[in-house]
């Protein structure tokens, strides 16, 4: 009997250890694809990546897709999902959760603990620019991979004590093909202009359209000179309303709020 209990305990321990590595503390996997946007193989690969980064960085990187937010705002849903499913490493419950909802076409990134430090408002803006094209284009796998890799990069950068922020954004990856094509394109346009000038040197024959050389000097007399005001039109246009939400905080840093469970979250979101 004791042996059996021991065996069960041992099995549970092994399972727990395994679960701890593959799953977040609460038992939910780091990829929850309820909207079924990913193929099985893509889902598997993405989950492997999320697990690998999460364990290495000791910060949960989570991707959640849902069909509907069930009446909540994207921020509330993402925060609650994070809090209720026990994501997060350590006391700070460090983690970053990426939620997209298909019905509302909302996306939201909720950060907690060290995730708040690593992903600043400016960093989030940059991140969203990087995955937005994939997201809008329906390439969800690429969007999530981009998100995961950027999170990895952000956390590594934050460890140095200087997280990516308004005055310290990640460098664009060097796209060699784009650079070569652009450089050659600009070079070609400049060359066209230069060779055009060289071609022009060969031409010296053209018609004269004016007779300016033959105006008798001082012969011009202005005898009629009237400027008559006729009418005026006034057009009135309403000023564009200033949009506060678009305003970027110049100070940098991360803005935070408190979720329904009382936990502190950062992040942000939008439509795709």
């Amino acid at each position, binding site marked *: 009997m004791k042996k059996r209990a021991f065996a069960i305990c041992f099995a549970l321990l092994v399972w727990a250890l395994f679960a701890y590595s593959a799953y977040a503390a609460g038992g939910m996997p780091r990829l929850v694809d309820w909207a079924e946007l990913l193929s099985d193989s893509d889902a598997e690969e993405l989950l492997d990546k999320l697990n690998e980064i999460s364990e290495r960085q000791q910060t949960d990187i989570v991707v959640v897709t849902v069909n509907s937010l069930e009446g909540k705002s994207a921020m509330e849903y993402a925060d609650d999902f994070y809090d209720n499913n026990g994501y997060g490493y350590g006391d700070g419950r460090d983690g970053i959760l990426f939620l997209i909802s298909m019905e509302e076409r909302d996306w939201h990134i909720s950060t907690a603990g060290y995730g708040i430090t690593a992903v600043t408002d400016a960093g989030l803006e940059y991140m969203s620019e990087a995955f937005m094209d994939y997201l809008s284009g329906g390439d969800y796998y690429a969007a999530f991979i981009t998100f995961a890799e950027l999170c990895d990069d952000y956390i590594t950068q934050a460890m140095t004590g200087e997280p990516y922020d308004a005055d310290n954004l990640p*460098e*664009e990856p*060097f796209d060699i093909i784009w*650079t*070569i094509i*652009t*450089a*050659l394109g*600009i*070079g*070609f346009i*400049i*060359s*066209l202009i*230069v*060779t055009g000038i*060289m*071609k022009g*040197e*060969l*031409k*010296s*024959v*053209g*018609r*004269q*359209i*004016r*007779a*300016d*050389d*033959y*105006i*008798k000097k001082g*012969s*011009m*007399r*202005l*005898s*009629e*000179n*009237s*400027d*008559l*005001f*006729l*009418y*005026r*039109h*006034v*057009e*009135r*246009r*309403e*000023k564009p309303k200033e949009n506060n939400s678009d305003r970027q905080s110049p100070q940098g840093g991360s803005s935070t709020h408190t979720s329904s469970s009382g936990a502190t979250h950062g992040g942000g979101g939008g439509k795709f």
Partner: protein
Amino acid sequence: MAAMQEYKCPCCGGAIAFDSRIQKMKCPFCDTEFEMDTLAGYDSQLRNDQADNMIWETDRGEEWQDEEVAGLRSYACRSCGGEIICDENTAATSCPFCGNPVVMKRQVSGMLRPDYVIPFQLDRKAAKAALKKHYEGKRLLPQIFKDQNHINEVKGVYVPFWLFDTSADVHMRYRATKMRTWSDSRYDYTETSFFSVSRGGTIGFETVPVDGSGKMPDDLMESLEPFDISKAVDFQTGYLAGYLADRYDVDAGQSAMRANERIRKSAEEAFAATVRGYGTVTKEAGSIQLNSKKVTYALFPVWILNTTWEGKNYLFAMNGQTGKMVGDLPLDKAAYRRWLFGLTGTIGAAIFAVFVLLWLL
């Protein structure tokens, strides 16, 4: 009783009526308001519009005297029809226009005697040197064209020009606008004020030249301008010695149209330049009347050089007075491509290096 004056709206063209409530004229179609004086003034401006009068009397002219004609010979090219005159001692062996050696002797007759001539001031050697210089610094000129520099013939030709003198009465009317913008807390305002601007006056033109030779390309001759007419002298047949003179075959009446185009352009621009201080200026009407018109017939000195290359005839001309050399040159297509792609590669590499540097910094 004064006749009813009907005004048209300067804004939309509709018939306009007096609005007793605002004590102003108001257009019932576009709701624009006008002062009574404005409409009267605009009306009188419109009344000033006139039709052009740019007709030249070209029947004047001096005929040749018999003794002058006796010393001159006329040659006609059987190939291109070009006709030239020279003194009896100058043998024309080939046509200066097409290079064809077949020429036919004729009697000089029935043409106007030139009023003036600008004598040649530069000689054959200067023309050849100028052509050499004309080739220099042109990187897309085929090297072989430069090296083979075989000029078929260099001919000094007196080219007939009609010279037009006139005083032009110009009347121009423009619609001009001024823009002003301001804002209050809710709106941005753009106010456009419309003005009717009229300008009139006179401007004189002297010796506007038009090439009277149908054989000489007009653009080639116009490219040779300007000639210094103050150096012109009264025509004497003696000036023709050793040179060829082209016979005019485009008469003054036909040439006047070309002169008119140039006079109109310059006159309109001169008066348009006096309309200042507006955002936009659009010409609404314009007319030119030419007064005190005078047409003279003059011979201008031109060195004609021609060369054939790859079956194509290249014609160059040098102003025999100022030395200005003109003439289109052939394009070395292979060199053009080399330059285009070479430069694209070089500049592209340089820009690529700049991109890399910017990225690294």
